[in-house]
């Protein structure tokens, strides 16, 4: 079973990203969970969301304390939130930042696992004209977690976007480009 923890800010779409990831994994035939940790927080507050992905039925209903992967949607959370807490031996963290892994390492309080970075802002602004970190973050997460092959993922998302954006097909291409660019650019 793969366990993933998301850190984001309310309103930024970390919850949506976790649900999208669950969707992608679901479509590959897996058992999935996608759920946020709920409180009365409003826009801007740090929030946490989770995914479990497994070939077996999942019965556990608790938060995830020892994730295989952590995804940080907003770089500014590195300071106030202990984002690397509990990451499993051999686990990894993915951070949305314009820095590279080496540069960001100092902000991770001695974390020794693998660090991936992705500049979701640049990708989003380039491909979508606005800052929607979700799409590139999802692609990067799928890539580093090894949930499915790139090709299959892109095929899957093409279908999903065609459905989701049926009324505004013009945005599909930009979203697909954002995915592709994220897959290509996510780096250690």
């Amino acid at each position, binding site marked *: 079973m793969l366990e993933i923890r998301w850190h984001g800010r309310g309103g930024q779409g970390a919850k949506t990203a976790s*649900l999208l990831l*669950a*969707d992608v994994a*679901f479509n590959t035939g897996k*058992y*999935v*969970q*996608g*759920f*946020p940790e*709920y*409180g*009365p927080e409003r826009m801007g507050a740090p929030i946490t969301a989770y995914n479990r992905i497994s070939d077996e*039925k*999942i*019965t*556990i*209903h*608790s*938060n995830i*304390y020892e994730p295989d992967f952590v995804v940080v949607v907003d770089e500014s959370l590195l300071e106030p939130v202990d984002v690397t807490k509990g990451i499993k031996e051999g686990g990894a963290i993915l951070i949305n930042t314009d820095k590279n892994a080496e540069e960001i390492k100092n902000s991770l309080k001695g974390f020794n696992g693998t660090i991936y970075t992705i500049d979701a802002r640049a990708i989003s602004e380039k491909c979508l004209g606005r800052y929607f970190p979700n799409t590139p973050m999802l692609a990067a997460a799928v890539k580093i977690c090894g949930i499915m092959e790139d090709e299959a993922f892109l095929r899957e998302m093409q279908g999903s976007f065609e459905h989701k954006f049926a009324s505004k097909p013009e945005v599909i291409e930009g979203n697909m480009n954002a995915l592709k660019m994220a897959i290509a650019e996510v780096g250690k």
Partner: protein
Amino acid sequence: MAIRDRLSGNEAVAIAMRQINPDVFPAFPITPSTEIPQFFSQYVADGKVATEFITVESEHSAMSACIGAQSAGARSMTATSSAGFAYMWEVLYVAASCRLPITLACVNRALTGPININCDHSDAMGARDAGWIQIYSENNQEAYDNFIQAVRIGEHADVQLPVMVCQDGFITSHAVENIELIEDEKVKAFVGEYEPEEYLLNAAQPIAVGPYDSSAYYIEHKRNQAEGMIKAKDVILQVAKEFKDMSGREYGLFEEYRLDDAELVIVVINSTAGTAKAAIDSLRKIGVKAGLLKIRVFRPFPMQEIAKALSGKKAVAVMDRCEGFSAAGGPLFAEIRSALYDASDRPMAVNYIYGLGGRDVTTGDIEKVYSDLADMATSGEAGETYRYLGVRE
């Protein structure tokens, strides 16, 4: 052919409601059940149901409108949580005493004092003696399946009682998980039409509902009402059997997980049962004879069946997601231990109050409980029966 999908518990229940296509749905939002009427209102807006959706101004009015509608001859349902559920409390009794098979999706959340939006069972447990059938659900699948069965159970001629289907707030209501849905036509055929024998809108025979009942009759009415609850046990099993024929999924009054040869047993309700199953699997690998009894039907309470299932076990931990203050224990413990009084080979039993206000419960917590049970079994001493799990001392 079942429809494989992934849904949150709330959406799953909303879909069950759409498939049932109730006549009247009065609703008032409260976290975490709010999404249910939200999803449903979209079905109304899109013409997918023929329901009269009434956006009432409170939960008290939601249940009151359900009572009016159901008495009038219409199938009605609603959803609520926590304080909203508590606000309905007075009229929950009326719904049951009027023998109205209303269905309620209760998304369990802690009662206020202080305010908290997360899961515990103090809301539903507070109304355990309101005369409603109570069915609990471990996950989205069970919430969906139970809701479909609830309509049939409540409306059965031998029962004629309202049914609430509970699931854990946020933990399952907002978690997206895999689910197998049943085709719309099959659900429709399964629940059938609501055809009450007598109802307000029957022009041929006016009726009067909700009398002032003097002491000359009140206790007979209550005894008559209790009979519906007594008979509900068989009806629940009968409906479960038909449901299995349709869906392949099996339900009883409670679920036994690796219980047969278990020596150490946890009794628990809703989502924590799933976490316990995972803990049991790992404990079994290291030779611990751990087992689980998961309550599905809390009202009517399957007392004899539980006594039989727990007879001969060494130690039992009953977990209450609801404070009992200075009662014999939490509500589940008080009843389980009472059931055990008649067991032929009575196990030791202790109570754990846990998970209040959404406090997370991990497999590690569950393992700790089994470890306590193992100590009890070894020492032969139960020790303190009224325990807390994970409270900072």
